[in-house]
């Protein structure tokens, strides 16, 4: 009897452990049987730059004539909304950093992008300077993936894939008849994104002679940036590029750099 009690206790522990393992594994097995082949969710992050009291680039005063006032935050939000609809219609999950005229902290934007585990991240900007569409990738040097990546250089391991993504965007925009320029820059919000990331800057289609001047065709840069048809064409081209980037041939399916 002196030995029987400990033996009974040991048996009780074993049976409890067995029951625990059984209970713990049953839901996993059930889940695996319910969805044997779950394709990875294809997610795109759209970051409409600026917002709220941060207007970004602007021209004129809000109290002035409506046609003469322009704020970058409005154009980026409008373009983001168009793109979101186009991508959702193509079955692509979209994460946006803002859906209204609010000021979202830069770090929060990067948190949203990095937690989404996205296959493509796009930071949308607009400017009255220059012409056409400018595509920028980070000017960080490519680096090896590390377990702990510094926040400010999280884009480093993704540089080569970001350059590939910019190439796909460039082809699609040029195919749509748009004037495209490629470049590299140090943009804090993009430098901290851990995904294939490109900053897209929309400039007047015909080209503004200066920051708020007339374009070569006599149409003002503000009118061009506010033109719904121009925005729609750019959004369609970007959506086509993202669909192209999604295809297996582009190798975008992998979520690792």
């Amino acid at each position, binding site marked *: 009897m002196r030995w029987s009690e400990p033996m009974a206790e040991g048996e009780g522990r074993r049976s409890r452990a067995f029951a625990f393992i059984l209970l713990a594994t049953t839901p996993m097995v059930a889940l695996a049987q319910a969805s044997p082949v779950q394709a990875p969710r294809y997610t795109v992050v759209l970051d409409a730059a600026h917002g709220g009291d941060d207007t970004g680039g602007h021209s004129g005063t809000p109290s002035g004539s409506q046609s003469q006032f322009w704020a970058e935050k409005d154009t980026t939000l409008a373009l983001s909304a168009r793109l979101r609809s186009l991508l959702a219609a193509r079955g692509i999950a979209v994460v946006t950093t803002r859906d209204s005229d609010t000021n979202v902290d830069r770090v929060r934007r990067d948190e949203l992008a990095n937690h989404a585990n996205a296959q493509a991240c796009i930071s949308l900007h607009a*400017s009255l*300077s*220059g012409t056409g569409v*400018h595509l*920028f990738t980070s000017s960080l040097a490519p680096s090896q993936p590390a377990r702990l990546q510094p926040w400010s250089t999280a884009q480093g391991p993704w540089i080569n894939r970001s350059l590939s993504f910019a190439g796909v965007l460039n082809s699609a925009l040029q195919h749509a008849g748009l004037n495209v*320029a490629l470049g590299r*820059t140090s*943009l804090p919000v993009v430098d901290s994104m851990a995904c294939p990331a490109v900053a897209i*800057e929309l400039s007047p289609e015909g080209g503004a002679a200066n920051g708020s001047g007339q374009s070569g065709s006599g149409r003002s840069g503000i009118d061009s940036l506010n033109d719904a048809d121009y925005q729609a064409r750019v959004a369609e081209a970007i959506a086509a590029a993202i669909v192209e980037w999604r295809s297996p041939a582009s190798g975008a399916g992998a979520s690792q750099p």
Partner: protein
Amino acid sequence: MALAGIGRGSFAAVIPRYQTVLFIVLLAASVIMTVLLWRQLDRAHQRMLDGQNSAPTQAPLVAPAESATLMVASDADGALQPRILSLPLPSLEANPGARARAILGRLLDLYAAADSAHPVPGGAASVEQVFLLPEPAGDSSSGAAGNKNAQNGSELAVVNLSGSFAANHPSGIETETLTVLSICATLHANLPRVASVRFLVDGQQRDTLAGHADLTRTYLTSQAVPSEEVTP
């Protein structure tokens, strides 16, 4: 009790009228003196700022004219083009910082011109100072390249821009990037020992130039120079 009675009575009654008047006069004099001193302080501060602004931004004409290469940005093609100008410049050995400031001032004068291909208001006065320092060996922001430059005796240029220049700079990724890169490339073209550049605005670190281009990082001039300039 008599003392207590006086104490509880009308306090004003025991203060002579001339003392009340004197107190009011002294109070008024104090207020007036405060206002006058405050205004004098403001004027002195303004005189000091004016003195800084009136510091020569261009080299004295007695200096011999030398050729300087300006890397001029163009919004139309988003590129930098070299432009060689003859400028009277301070001696490189005696005052390299003033020389760098004069060259950058000329570059920003071009941008402030009416027919500029990269319009940015401000002109030469927008460059307040340029400091040339030995490259720090352990600069993490420039990484291995920074350490290599430190071993080669390279220099770090710290460009202090005026707040009005940053405030009036057109906003946009391309236009801001072109301004930053043209400053870096121009410094490297004329002072080859300058391997990296940092920016300040009114003596303080600033996040971005006009909402986009990062001003917190160290820019390597080798990355700013157009590729055809790098290749021998």
